[in-house]
């Protein structure tokens, strides 16, 4: 079949220590190989930098989500408490939003945080393609326990890459099989 020729060949290297993995990623990339993906049971500090991933833009998104939450809070407090159903609470001015603003600050704060936090999580799920019923991408279940796995695209000589991976301290090296996922 033609599929074997235009397929990228992916080599999986398994590590049992995050520091060794981090150094491995750096060494492999320094030799000009492309690290496709790394699976880890916990966030490894500095790994994104070592893999050469583009900086996350979630911070910018969070700012605008927060702004959206703030605007929503202003709109709903204005609509509910001033326009639609003004109530006299402790003699506070119920006919102008501006003078009553201090009373609404907790709502403004909470909705800003609520929108920023929730939308950030949903954005994260969306961008990472995480949703119920998703077919798993993780090639080795042990990476959810105490092992780390690096996927390297094979370019050039196979033996050379294998030796390199061995040298970086990989405890297991194999070729990725279920490529059609």
């Amino acid at each position: 079949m033609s599929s074997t020729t235009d397929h990228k060949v992916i080599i999986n290297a398994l590590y049992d220590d995050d520091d060794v993995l981090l150094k491995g990623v750096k060494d492999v990339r320094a030799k000009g190989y492309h690290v496709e993906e790394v699976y880890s049971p916990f966030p490894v500090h500095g790994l994104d930098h070592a893999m050469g991933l583009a900086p996350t833009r979630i911070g910018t998104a969070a700012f605008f989500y927060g702004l959206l939450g703030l605007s929503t809070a202003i709109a709903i407090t204005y609509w509910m408490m001033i326009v639609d159903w003004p109530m006299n609470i402790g003699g506070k001015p119920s006919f102008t939003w501006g003078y009553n603003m201090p009373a609404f600050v907790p709502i403004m704060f909470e909705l800003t945080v609520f929108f920023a936090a929730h939308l950030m999580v949903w954005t994260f799920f969306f961008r990472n393609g995480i949703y119920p019923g998703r077919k798993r991408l993780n090639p080795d279940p042990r990476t959810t326990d105490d092992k780390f796995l690096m996927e390297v695209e094979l370019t050039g000589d196979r033996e050379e890459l294998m030796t390199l991976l061995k040298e970086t301290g990989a405890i297991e090296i194999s070729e990725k099989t279920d490529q059609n996922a």
Partner: protein
Amino acid sequence: MFEFTGRLKTLSYILILIGIISVGASFFTGRGHDEAHHGHEGTEHHEADGHHTEGHGDAHHGKDEHHAEDQHKADHGGSHHDDHHNSEYFEEHKDNFNYHKSASRATPDNNHYHRTMAEAHVDKEHLHHQMANKPWANLLVNNFFFLAIALGALFFLAIQYAAQAGWATLILRVMEAMSQFLVIPVMIMLLLVVTGVYHIGDNHLWHWMQEGIMDPESPHYDEIIAGKEGYLNGPFYLLRTLIYLIGWVGAAMLLRRMSLKMDRGGDVAAQWKKMRNLSAGFLVFFAVTSSTSAWDWIMSIDTHWFSTLFGWYTFAGIFVSSLTVLTLIIIYLKSKGYLEDVNENHIHDLGKFMFAFSIFWTYLWFSQFMLIWYSNIPEEVTYYMARFGEYKGLFFLMLAINFVFPVLVLMSRNTKRNYGFLVTAGIFIIIGHWLDVYIMVMPGTVGSLWSIGLVSIGTFLGFAGLFILVVFRSLAKAPLVSKNHPMLLESKYHHI
């Protein structure tokens, strides 16, 4: 090793000179007022009121005279009200009044508490005190602001040891040097307290110190203030200030000495542990005294008023101004090629502190404000009424500088790693928190007679010069990095 020479040293001497001239001038012209005022003794209140603008040579008072007078009248109840003034005052604030009426808010006029309390004082005497207070209040504002910077650095230093923090080891010497300044503002504070308690030099900063105010037989008698005599009395007040002096300055000096001893080798680990214990003890002491000192020196100016959050609110201001100055000094040293091991991660962390504690300050400010605003109880709300009256513009400007500005400028990771942004934000935070102290002190001491002019700025510069001189001299006395510190390596490889 840092050397303190050249332009910076000259600059600090020039600044100190400016400060001395400013303080001297403020007391000299203040005395001039005093004599002028005594010359008018026995004349009607209206005349006295009129003349308080004469001697000032300050455009602000001329411009605001009418307003100030109205405010003053309103403050001191109905005895001097006449129809003309009443109607004029009403016209000017018509919208406000209608609004106040409909919203049943407290105003100087409908606030019974505000009025009856104020009536107890003789107007003329009160005004005289406010005028005499101007140089003292100016000194208190600037002195407290710089005390805050040194004290905050000492607190931060103690936190590093008590928490066994590694990241900051490279910048501990800067904190130490800043905390060495503490002795000067605390001594000046002691001077202010002594002159206040013993009525020297027309110092009326703290209203409760007035003679006879706790004596039921006296015309000055004030029942509420008399009820606070157990805490607010001369001897105890002096004693507390002395305790702060000994505790704070003692801790600063001991920590410094131990840190220098560490440089000479020996049993470094034991030394470090001793510093940790001392820091932990100091933090307990500081937890209590940071609140009580804020009550004593600042909150007791508005003696009737109280706020349970005041100590923390003041502390937040202390800490954020101090962190800002710390960052600025480190950036200065780095720009001169010192502290080469301090990398952008340390700077980033300091930026985070500036950002976080600006928000923390706002949180406490708002917590204090909103409870008082919402409950609208006359005895509590007087504090903010004074600040929404004469000080409205300054008040909101201060809030914008201290909250909106740092939040927007320092929110991004990149700006926290950029010297330009940090310095810009830092300068604004310093101005903002100076204004915060100003607004804490001024309404209760000089009332409507406030002005930010050459004297205030000159005094600020003088203190800044003194601060630079002491801090950079301390920096030059020892290596900038404590070479034997057990956590030095961790700090060198600090990475976030």
